[in-house]
C-alpha cells in the first residue's frame, strides 16, 4: 500500500506514541520501575507465544506478552506489600527471573528453528522486519500486521486516558483524597498496568527487550522539563518521541544500523539536552537563576547592615570595613556598593554613604518575606 520506508516510519511513530501515553502517567506517579518490570516480564509470554506463532506482531504475542507483564507487575506489588523490600529491588529479581525463563524458551525455539527465527530481534528489536508480515483481507494487502496491532493498542490507550483522566489526576496528586471519594487506587493501578503491558508487548518488534523502557519513560521524563501541566505533558511527550523516531530513523536507515538503537540513543540525547537546556527547569537556567538570587542576596546583606547598624565612616573606609566584617573581597563589596548606588538604593553625600528611601523600602519589603514559614 505504502513504500516500505514510509510504513516503517509510521509504525515507529505509532509505537512511540503508544508507549509514551502510559509513560507520562508512570513518570507522574514516580513509578519508574513498572515499565522495566513489564518490559522484562513480557519476555516470558512472548517466548511462549513464539512456540505457536512465528512473528512478533501476532495477536497471540501481544496477549501472552501482556499477561506475563501484568503477572510481573502484580508479583512485585504483592511481594512489596508482604515484605519490607523496596519495590525496585523486588522488580529486578522478579522481572529478571521471568525474563530468563523467556530467554530459555526463546533460545530453545531459536536452536530448533534457526532458519526462521532470529533471537536478536527480541533483544534489540528490528523495525525493518515489521513490513514482512502483511495483513490481507480477501487476498488484498492492506498493510503490515504491526501497523494495525500498534494502531489498535494506541487507540485503546487514548480511550482509557479519556475515560479515566480525572482518576489518573486525583490518584497521582492525592491518594488519600481519592480513597475518601471512593476512587480505588487498585483500579487506577490495574488500568495503568494493562496500558503499560499492552504497550510493551506491542512495541517489542520496534524497540526490543532492552530498549522498550527507554521508549516508555524517556520522552515523558524529558517532557517534564518543559511543562507543569499534565495534559501538556502528555502532548509534549508524544511530540518528543515522534521527533526522536524521525531523527533516529533518518540516521539509522541510510547507515544500515539498528533503527531502534538510533531512536533510543536520540531519546537519551533529548533527555540530557532537556536536563541541561530546558528554558525553565534546565540545570543551566537554574544555575544562572541561583547566581542571580545569590547576587541579590549579597545586595540585601549590605542594605540590611546599613539599615540596622550605624557605621559612621567615609565611603572607602566603609567598603573596607564591610569587606572585613563580611569576610568578602574588597572588589566584591566595592562592586555591590556601586551597583546599589546606581540603582539608587544608596547615595553618597560628602564622601559618606547613606541608605536612600528606596533602599529602606526595598530591604523592609525583603525582610517581611523572610520568615521561616515561607
Amino acid at each position, binding site marked *: 500500500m505504502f513504500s516500505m520506508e514510509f510504513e516503517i516510519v509510521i509504525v515507529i511513530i505509532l509505537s512511540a506514541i503508544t508507549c509514551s501515553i502510559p509513560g507520562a502517567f508512570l513518570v507522574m506517579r514516580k513509578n519508574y520501575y513498572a515499565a522495566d518490570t513489564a518490559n522484562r516480564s513480557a519476555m516470558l509470554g512472548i517466548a511462549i507465544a513464539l512456540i505457536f506463532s512465528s512473528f512478533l506482531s501476532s495477536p497471540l504475542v501481544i496477549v501472552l506478552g501482556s499477561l506475563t507483564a501484568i503477572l510481573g507487575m502484580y508479583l512485585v506489588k504483592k511481594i512489596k506489600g508482604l515484605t519490607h523490600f523496596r519495590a525496585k529491588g523486588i522488580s529486578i529479581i522478579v522481572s529478571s527471573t521471568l525474563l530468563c525463563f523467556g530467554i530459555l524458551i526463546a533460545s530453545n525455539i531459536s536452536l530448533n528453528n534457526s532458519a526462521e527465527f532470529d533471537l536478536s530481534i527480541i533483544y534489540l528489536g528490528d523495525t525493518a522486519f515489521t513490513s514482512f508480515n502483511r495483513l490481507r483481507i480477501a487476498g488484498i494487502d492492506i498493510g503490515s500486521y504491526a501497523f494495525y496491532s500498534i494502531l489498535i493498542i494506541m487507540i485503546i490507550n487514548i480511550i482509557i486516558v479519556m475515560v479515566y483522566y480525572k482518576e489518573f489526576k486525583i490518584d497521582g*496528586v492525592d491518594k488519600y483524597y481519592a480513597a*475518601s471519594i*471512593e476512587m480505588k487506587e487498585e483500579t487506577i493501578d490495574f488500568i495503568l498496568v494493562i496500558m503499560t503491558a499492552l504497550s510493551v508487548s506491542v512495541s517489542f518488534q520496534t524497540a526490543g527487550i532492552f530498549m522498550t523502557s527507554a521508549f516508555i519513560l524517556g520522552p515523558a521524563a524529558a517532557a517534564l522539563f518543559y511543562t507543569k501541566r499534565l495534559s501538556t505533558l502528555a502532548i509534549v511527550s508524544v511530540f518528543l518521541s515522534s521527533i526522536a523516531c524521525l531523527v533516529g530513523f533518518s540516521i539509522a536507515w541510510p547507515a544500515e544500523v539498528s533503527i531502534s538503537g538510533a531512536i533510543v540513543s536520540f531519546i537519551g540525547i533529548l533527555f540530557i539536552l532537556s536536563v541541561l537546556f530546558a528554558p525553565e527547569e534546565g540545570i543551566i537556567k537554574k544555575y544562572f537563576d541561583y547566581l542571580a538570587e545569590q547576587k541579590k542576596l549579597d545586595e540585601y546583606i549590605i542594605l540590611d547592615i546599613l539599615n540596622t547598624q550605624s557605621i559612621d565612616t567615609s565611603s572607602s573606609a566603609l567598603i573596607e570595613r564591610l569587606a572585613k566584617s563580611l569576610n568578602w573581597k574588597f572588589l566584591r563589596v566595592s562592586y555591590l556598593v556601586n551597583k546599589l548606588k546606581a540603582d539608587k538604593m544608596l547615595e553618597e553625600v560628602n564622601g559618606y554613604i547613606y541608605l536612600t528611601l528606596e533602599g529602606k523600602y526595598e530591604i523592609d519589603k525583603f525582610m517581611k518575606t523572610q520568615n521561616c514559614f515561607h
Partner: protein
Amino acid sequence: MIRTYSSKEHIEQLNVAVKCENVTVEYKGRPNLLNINMEVPSGVLLAVLGPNNSGKTTLLKTIAGVEKPTAGNIYIYSRPTHALKNDVAYVPERNHVNWDFPINLFDLVLMGSYNRLRRAEQPHKKDKIAVKEALERMGLEKLAKKSICDLSRGEKHRALIARALVQDARIYIMDDPMVAADEESINIIVEVLQELRAKKKTVIVSHHDFVTIPRYFDMVALLNVKLLGIGKTEDILTEENFEKTYGMSAGIIKNIRLYMDESHDRTK
C-alpha cells in the same frame, strides 16, 4: 472514660453526624485505634488531641473512609461510611500530597468537584465558579494559575481546604490543617472553620496547639490508641485528662486555663 455532654436528653435531640462503634484499626498486628466509641453531634467544631502515634490521623482517615476498620462500624448520619462519598470532605496532611504533580492550583481545587461527576464527565461551569469562590475565600485567587509545586506551606494548606470547600460536604475532616502554616494562613483557616460551623457543618480537626483549642473548638476528643475522653472543651481540658493522655505534667493545662479565663473575661 469521660463523656461530658450537657445532658443525655440534649444529646439525643442533636443530630449525630459521626458515630464510631467499637472501631479498631490495626497495622501489622498492632492496634492504631482500639475499640473507639464516640458520637460527634452535627454542627460542632471538634479537635482531636493526642501525642504522636496516638492514632489521630488513623481515626480521621477511618471516618473519611480512606482506611477500613479491622473491627467495628462507622456511621455518617446513621448510614455506613461507604454509602456517602459526597457527605465527607477530607483534607489530608500536607505531606501526603504529591506536590510535584504537574497541575496548577485551579486544577487542584477543581478536583473537589470530581466526586459529583460521572466517569469521563468533565467539570461544568458551576464547578469552575465554585472553585473561583473557594480560591477567593482562601485568599488564593491570584495564584490560580501557579503550579502547585511553587506554593508556600501555608498556601498548600489553604489550597487543600479550598478543595474541600468545593466539595460542599456536610462533614469536614482535616488532618493538621494549621501545622507549620504562616499567621495569615492560620487566620484564614480559623475564619473558615467558624464559617463552616455557622453553616451547621460538622468539622473534625486534629490539632497540636493546646493554647488555641479553647478559642477555636467547641468539643475536644482525647486519644491515645483508646479514646480517653470526649466532650465540651472546658470539661475535657483538665489536668487529670492531660496526664492520662500525654503523661505530662499539668503545667500546660494551668497555662491553658489561665488563657481560657482571660478570654472569658474579655468576652464578658
